[in-house]
């Protein structure tokens, strides 16, 4: 197994007329990694994928695959294979013909192609389906055929454009695991595009979060979630309670923020903002719903919030409690279901506490719209 071929984007800009789709992207994707671009629709992630696959060229900057500059080369001259969002299987070709289309293009004989198709069908756990038409397969099976078709060309880099978005929840979760397994088995670089943070976090070695053409953060999933580098990342990836305010003081990497409505609160300064976030700056502080807890009493140590219950929901694994702080500040708390009843009546007043290490202080910035 090779160690995989890396992909580098160097100062890449993509413009359509006056519209900047991708702004100065700098990404180093290690060979053999599962790398995701995560962002809301229209953020430019699909544009990046099309640039890597060769369907469009960047306006500026370079795309290197295995160290070789690919700008100006067509999709058929690059060692990449693309899996489309709608899979784009050929409806009139049988499964084996679909899978081995890249071999047919190169002029391989029928026997050779059928042998290879059998191998690949074995790998994706779909033996004996080679003579079916795509329309006779289920959603998950089509998915796997699309993967096999892409792998048949033996690409160095596999590009996936939200391929799971058409599947139902259960199958999607199953395919995540399967995709990850396939990736580890073939050992090639996967570049995955998604707006679903669950997919990005579960499968990827690294995630790049994009906002309106700009890459806000590139990091491992855990860092993206726990140590976001911008307000956008904090609000887009997972759920977060936002507290706006000004930085009151900073000591040992922790800031006290005087929030607009919830008093003074303590939070860890995000590593991306350490050194740049100064006393007096406009700031945003983020606390995840699951980081909030119910305190025994209000100890007044800058990590307590008093709030009234608005309503609560039972979600199975957890209870979601929707709260209203002073001046109508809305908050959400998630409590793990440990068997005891934790549905609170509306109007009950609670004191919340959190670990300041789990709260993140960032410079004020644009939030992800719901």
């Amino acid at each position, binding site marked *: 197994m090779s160690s995989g071929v890396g992909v580098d984007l160097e100062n890449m800009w993509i413009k359509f007329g006056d519209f900047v789709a991708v702004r100065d992207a700098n990404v180093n994707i290690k060979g053999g990694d599962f790398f995701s671009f995560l962002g809301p629709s229209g953020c430019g992630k699909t544009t990046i994928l099309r640039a890597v*696959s060769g369907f469009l060229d960047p306006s500026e900057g370079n795309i290197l695959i295995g160290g070789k500059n690919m700008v100006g080369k067509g999709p*058929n001259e690059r060692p*990449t294979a693309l899996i489309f*969002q*709608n899979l*784009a299987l050929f409806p009139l070709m049988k499964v084996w013909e679909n899978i081995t289309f*890249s071999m*047919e*293009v190169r002029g391989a004989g029928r026997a050779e192609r059928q042998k290879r198709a059998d191998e690949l069908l074995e790998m994706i756990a779909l033996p004996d389906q080679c003579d079916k038409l795509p329309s006779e397969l289920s959603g998950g099976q089509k998915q796997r055929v699309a993967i096999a*078709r892409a792998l048949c060309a033996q690409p160095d880099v596999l590009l996936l454009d939200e391929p799971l978005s058409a599947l139902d929840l259960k199958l999607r979760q199953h395919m995540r695991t399967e995709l990850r397994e396939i990736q580890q088995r073939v050992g090639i670089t996967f570049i995955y595009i998604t707006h679903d943070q669950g997919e990005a976090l579960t499968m990827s070695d690294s995630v790049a979060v994009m906002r309106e053409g700009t890459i806000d953060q590139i990091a491992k999933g855990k860092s993206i979630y726990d140590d976001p580098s911008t307000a956008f990342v904090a609000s887009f990836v997972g759920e977060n309670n936002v507290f706006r305010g000004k930085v009151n003081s900073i000591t040992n990497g922790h800031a006290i923020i005087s929030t607009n409505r919830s008093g003074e609160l303590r939070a860890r300064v995000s590593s991306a903002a350490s050194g740049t976030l100064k006393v007096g700056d406009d700031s945003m502080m983020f606390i995840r719903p699951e980081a909030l807890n119910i305190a025994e009493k209000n100890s007044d140590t800058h990590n307590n919030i008093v709030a009234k219950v608005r309503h609560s929901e039972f979600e199975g694994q957890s209870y979601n409690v929707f709260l209203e702080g002073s001046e109508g500040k809305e908050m959400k708390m998630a409590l793990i279901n440990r068997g005891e009843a934790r549905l609170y009546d509306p109007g009950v007043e609670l004191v919340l506490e959190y670990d300041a290490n789990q709260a993140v202080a960032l410079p004020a910035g644009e939030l992800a719209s719901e």
Partner: protein
Amino acid sequence: MKKGILEEYFRRNGKLMGWGLLLAVGFWVVVLIILPQISMLDFSFRNHLPPPEIGGPKDTYTLANYQYLIFGAQGNEEGYNKVDLLVFVRTLVAAAFVTILDLLLCYPIAYYLGQSKGGGYVRILVLLLIIPYWINEILRAFAFRIIFGDSGVINEFMLLFGLIDSPVDFIRANIALYAGLGYAYILLMIFPIYNVIESLDRNQIEAARDMGASWTMIHRRVVIPYAKPGISSGCTMVFMLSAGALAAPQILGGPSSLWFTQLIYQWFNQGGNWTQGSAYAVVLLVTCIIIVLSVMRLFKVNMGDIGK
């Protein structure tokens, strides 16, 4: 069961509307399509008689009209009706040629129209294709005659640029006829193909390109198989209509080249021999249907696909 369907039909459309529709469709199918064809068929097997003798003892069924097409008049020394058979074959070959010409011309246009999602100017292009058809068919044929004439635009241009020394006789060479027929049915070829290609997922083309397929490969393996119903529908219509065309061959045909429909026309109108004309018409119709069905079989197209 059958009653159930009818009841359901009337329940959905109402009594008045239901009967109205049934009568209209029935009238159209029976009176305008089936009865004329049957009477044509009946005519073709009868003797050509002066009006007083119709219904008399001589009015019997006969194969004489068909015999005439194949063997010519009695006492014909050549054995076969060479002239008419030659016209018949030439008409079919020319119609096939026009069909292929139209297909070659229209496939790229239809592909372009179907795959470019750029709304505005595609609509203008379609309009530009349609507007000429507001002009009467006969006028259009005469316009072609003028364009292709000895002192027509094409000859004038070629003379002007010194491409030729003396005017080319496009009419005698039947070039004007093929061009006129081809042009007459262009839309019938473009639109069925355009309709199908429009629904082809662009990603399939890109996927094929991503896997290294050349343009010919993409068309051969992805686009054409997908567009086959549209292609066969277009080809069927163009072939049938070219083989059955009358005005264009009349106006644009060279002096020495008759179209089979012109023979039929002559039997009916100049010869006054309706029974003979009917036999010729039936032969043309049946042959065309057989050709179309065999070609469809050859390319594995189902009847149902054509309606798509």
